């Protein structure tokens, strides 16, 4: 069932399941981490697709056409709104 984008739940990126897509809502973290995240394309409004997430260890997402590996903790600092359920 398709839900209105604004009513979908907002979750940390590391809770996104493989093939699920999300829209970046907000980022937290120190200046250095934030700067590197935004440079690689994690800005509010960007679409991310989870590529690999085994529930533990680092994960891989697709953002702006690039595969990016992220530590679990770092991914937890990015909050996304689920776009659809994969």
């Amino acid at each position, binding site marked *: 069932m398709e839900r209105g984008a604004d009513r979908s739940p907002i979750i940390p990126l590391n809770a996104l399941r493989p093939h699920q897509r999300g829209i970046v809502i907000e980022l937290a973290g120190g200046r250095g981490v934030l700067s590197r995240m935004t*440079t690689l394309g994690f800005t509010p409004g960007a679409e991310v697709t989870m590529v690999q997430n085994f529930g533990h260890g680092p994960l*891989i997402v697709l953002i*702006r056409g690039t*595969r990016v590996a992220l*530590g679990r*903790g770092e991914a937890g600092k990015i909050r996304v709104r689920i776009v659809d359920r994969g």
Partner: protein
Amino acid sequence: MAETTYTVALAGQPNVGKSTLFNLLTGMNQHVGNWPGKTIEQKVGSFTYNGTTYRLVDLPGTYSLTANSIEEIIARDFIIKERPDVVVVLVDAATLERNLYLVAELLPLPAPVIVALNMMDVAEQEGYKIEPEVLQAALGVKVVPMIATRNIGTRELVAAIDEVVHHADEYAPKRPEIRADHRQVLEEIEALIAGHVPEPYPQDWVALKLLEGDREITRMMRERMGEAGWEAVHEVLRAHDDALVAVASGRYEWIGRMIRAAVTRPRAGQIGLTERIDRWATHPLWGLLILAAILGLAFWLTYALGTPLQDWLDSVVVGGLAALMSSLLANEPLWLQGLMIDGIIGGVGTVITFLPILLIFFAILALLEDTGYMARAAYVMDRFMHLMGLHGKSFLPLFLGFGCNVPAVMGARVIESHRARLLTIMLAPLIPCAARMAVVAFLAPAFFGEAATLASWGLVALNLAVLALAGVSLNRIAFKGSLAAFIMELPLYHVPNWRTIGLTVWQHSLAFLRKAGTIILVVSVIVWALSVLPGGGIESSFLARIGHFLEPLGQLMGFDWRLMVALLTSFVAKENSIATLGVLFGAGEQAGLSELMAAELARPTGLAFLVVQMLFIPCVASVAVIRQETGSWRWALFNVALLLAVSLLIGILVYQVAVLF
């Protein structure tokens, strides 16, 4: 000559094929050095077109131009302070959106920009349709489509460079603007700093960087304006601490407009090669097995191909040279014969036989890097590195250490957190470098015969076990703190470029030969001189005296004075221990060093020697870069003391246990 030379800077994000393009443009007309005062490699080359000479400067690969790393500072300082006539920014057409971020950062700077749109073939495979003319119109700068790996578009790029330098006044880029909700605050800052911005920094750029919270620019302006003037700026900045994300979002919004105009993607998301490989290569279990297999294969290849070549060089080239020299010098004084044959040929010759092993290892490393695999290795190692309080990125410099510890220590720069970088540097010398492995490859057959390969693997495993233990304990005791952030790009896999790999190997080999020709030559001669002076044979030489002084310590490991001296000289360069042993055991035309050592030394002694050799203090070059990279002698000396204690303790332990059997 009246002819003018123009300077072209080559910028680009990592993994876009910058070295391929650089090599294509300059060929052998290139020089590898360091950026002034930095240990980052700088490549400068030249090419001519229509009678004009161009100096091409390769800027470090960076994702952005914000002061997050030394690379980024070098790249932007060069553009702002050296004012190149053109900046060519190489972008990957297949990941255009992210790549245009660097373009968005370059356009506000004073130098004219040309966009070289590389990997058009890969972009097409991925289903993108890109219209370079539309992008050119949207950006207001020249856009040259190319496929650097197939030398397509190079000529057009050079023609574009030529046109831009000769018509500099026609350059009119459409610069990205800040997001509307932050335009006012940017103007406020610009008004506050007006008149305080030092030459040659553009005022509007400085204002933007202040808003982004750039460390370097903030420090610079704070010093310039004094506390009173700065306070007003600081006030504005504090009220807009979300500006960093807003500025980046603004750039990506601008990029979005460019992309919408110039790129269509009729068929998106078919499963590409990268995704198929990564299902295995990044899997928590299979990925590790693949990594282990690749490493195993790399070492097997290195030694299977390298050892016969090494033997051939040793017996035919070095042996032949020694024989030739001794017949030529038959009528010359004995000291001259000794100096030439034992000192120079014996020392440097043996070291040169390491070249095949180094060459093959560097080739494999360059291949893994160039295909895009290395990032996957970092990814699968991440969870293990966590045990040591490090993350996946630390694996990359440590892996480099198998070639040489010096680039490993310098490579630790990719790690952003100071604490994790320091710990990685402290651990790097425990990775057995090619020079140490070559010593093992040379000596292990002497002591272990058929079981030499097994013994070599055991020695490597011991080093890695010590590294892991040291990592876990250092992390517990000395490096308590939070983990650094792990974020890295996993580039698309692609077919390696043999030219790039070839040139990399060539440069590494040249650097090694230069070292063999200088430091090692000098040490070989010094060791030889110390071994014959003050006269009356090696047993009463200065070298023997030093060795005898240390012998009581050596006895605990079954070492005689000669082995202690060999260890000492390995401090200068690891491969020296072979050269030293060659001199001390009197190896020459009659019998090779390995036979002599096998005959004279017991197996426990041999084993203990190899163990200590593998774990011993880092070589002079490594100590020097540790000092440089950590910024203090304290860490360099701590590292030496740590490894000295660890190697001797384990050496004693191994010997005492081995003699029981």
